[in-house]
């Protein structure tokens, strides 16, 4: 348990959060390597099944990053995501997962620092929570 490193899948929208994560790189910010990014066109593309699939395959946390309200490149995709994530949080709770394991953040292309903070904070919180109860025993 001491060496437990949470596995985070990060779905990042191409226009805002992915670019924000790029900016974190360009700015050479340093943060925890636990989140593996997957680029999606819009946070609205994040099908609830992606999130549930990630948890069922042993993800300790899932981060969804989208544009700030009003800034979505596709007008309203992020609002759809907001609603979906709310429902999903309730659903994963039923599955025995803590709702903190699923996190939705609005991170713009200029918020490299916020991306860093979110990944670090999520890693710390997941370490406190311990491994996902859905994780298969190895």
């Amino acid at each position, binding site marked *: 348990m001491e060496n437990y490193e949470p596995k985070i899948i990060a779905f990042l929208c191409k226009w805002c959060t992915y670019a924000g994560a790029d900016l974190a790189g360009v700015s050479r910010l340093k943060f925890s390597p636990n989140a593996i990014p997957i680029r999606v066109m819009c946070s609205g593309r994040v099908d609830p099944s992606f999130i549930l699939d990630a948890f069922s395959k042993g993800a300790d946390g899932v981060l969804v990053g989208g544009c700030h309200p009003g800034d979505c490149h*596709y007008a309203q995709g992020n609002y759809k995501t907001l609603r979906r994530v709310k429902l999903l949080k309730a659903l994963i709770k039923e599955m025995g997962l803590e709702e903190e394991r699923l996190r939705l953040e609005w991170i713009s*292309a200029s918020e490299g620092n916020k991306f860093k903070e979110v990944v670090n904070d999520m890693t710390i919180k997941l370490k406190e929570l311990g491994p996902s109860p859905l994780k298969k025993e190895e």
Partner: protein
Amino acid sequence: MDSNSSSPRVGVFVCHCGSNIAGTVDVEKVAQEISKMEGVAYAGTYIYMCSDPGQKLMRETIEKEKLDRVVVAACSPTLHEKTFQINSKNAGLNPYQCEIANIREHCSWVHEDNKKATEKAIKITKSIVEKVKEDKSLTDIEVPITKKAIVIGGGVSGIQAALDIANGGYKTYLIEKDSSIGGKMAKLSETFPTLDCSQCILTPKMVEASNHPNIELMTYSEVESVSGYVGNFKVKIKKKPTSVNWDLCTGCGDCYNKCPAKVPSEFQEGLSKRAAIYIPFPQAVPNKPVIDRENCLYYQKGICKICEKVCKIGAIDFDMKEDIVEIDTGAIVVATGYREYPLENLTEYGGGKYPNVISGLKFERLLSASGPTGGQIIRPSDGKSVKDIVFVQCAGSRDIEEHKPYCSKICCMYTAKHAMLFKHKVHDGNAYVFYIDVRTAGKDYEEFYYRTTEEDHALYTRGKVSKIFEDGEKVVVWGVDTLTGKKVEIKADLAVLAMAIEPSVGIKELQQKLKISIDENGFLKEAHPKLRPVESMTSGIFFAGAAQGPKDIPESVSQAGAAASKVLSMFSSNMLHKEPLICEIDEDVCSGCGVCIALCPYKALEAEITTKEGKEVKRSKLNEALCQGCGTCSSACPSGAATMRNDETKNMFKMIEVILE
């Protein structure tokens, strides 16, 4: 080669990026691990994959190893996705079967632990290999272009961009929120480093824009909404009611000469008054007045109507309503410029409190021959002449704690100009300048600054001003000379603050309408700071001038030309190639529930009734030209009929699996 065959041959090219990646990530180990994956026929590394030899290596390997799809593990796809896609295409592959694994921005640059960074790089690359294995061979979608452009903002950048596009032969709409074009430059007295009179070089351009057969000026107008996409935008423009019928108005001036309501003139920075019906300045283009309804006695109190009485041709129209017009356009240039950081924010300098502490732009109006004093330097408080003047540079700029963290770029030069012009007008006067650093990077700029100090004897003191306060008739400036370590006190007649500049009011709303990004300081964010400095991330939308960041006139004009050339190169073909990474409806699976239709922000999906095996069935039909590929439909489709090309749900599951294994 059948690139959709069931047994893919993937080639993985891992870039060292010099030491940018290889300094943190063990690239050889990445290649080694990836080579073990099923379907990977080749995995190798090279020091600079984007360089000519790197690209050649890729092409040769594709041929030699009979690869049918490619992953490049390198920098962000924002930077070189296109480069590598074109290279794969040149090697005979389908460009949409070339994918980028971002192991630089998202990995080597943000982690220090080599082992962990290498592990992460392997996972990222593996996930992209899984993606590319499922990628289908796709062809671009061709869409027609509306060869008309809109330029938002009628300052020097907007005027230049509009002229360049119009001279290329295309209809251009120049949108300006004020009643006249000209922007900030129209307010300036002389311009560094040549001391050309600003009006002399700008007003001919204003007239040229106004008379150009391909330019339609839309002043006193604002962008209401924007829809559509590159090549085919629909922009709604709100034409604010001028209350004057400009088709009839001759610009004689009887109305504003007789109008009894007087308010501070925006153009003269409050140094003089204007009427409620007014043209902002005598050289305005168009030279037609508008009624400022907030200050008009008729609109406010229901009395007066003097303008209507004196207008012999009956051009006054108190009932004029705002009008919304819709324009089809292929490209948009945003040139909304800047404003001065409000003087009131600098309370430590008594900004907004003391009449003899003024902003740089206000001083321009005092210097200008077309200003309220005819170019005479006087104190705004009592009209007395000025002998001792203090210029404070970096007023609000380069101040991380209190104000703006960035350098406003133009102030060093215009302060040198102010001090020089002051000395030209007041020979026995003393011009003191406080500075942190003097930045004069620009052609002939350093020489200009030397003239100010050596020939015109402006007295430069290195140090920040701590406080400005009134003492009798004088303003007292406290500062420190950091070169001698001594405190400095100057009793001056006038203090001029070289205010920080910030984006114009309304940039946030406009940015949201256009779906483009702004940076942490509110300036427009370009697609790439070095390689794509005039483009937004949204194709078809370009930037010109200080809306993108502080800029002087030569830079603004250059950028306007660059933006125009981007528009012209786009208009030089008849069809646009659009990425085919959009939605696809599986007709056999679609049940016609219509969930996707309600969700689509582009109205790209509609219900269709077709006949299937003799029965009428309902299903969703996609309009390829309208779909932008956001994927919202796909995430909501209960039957899985709506999928995203090369971003299908099953691809995603495989990517997730390989990351978590």
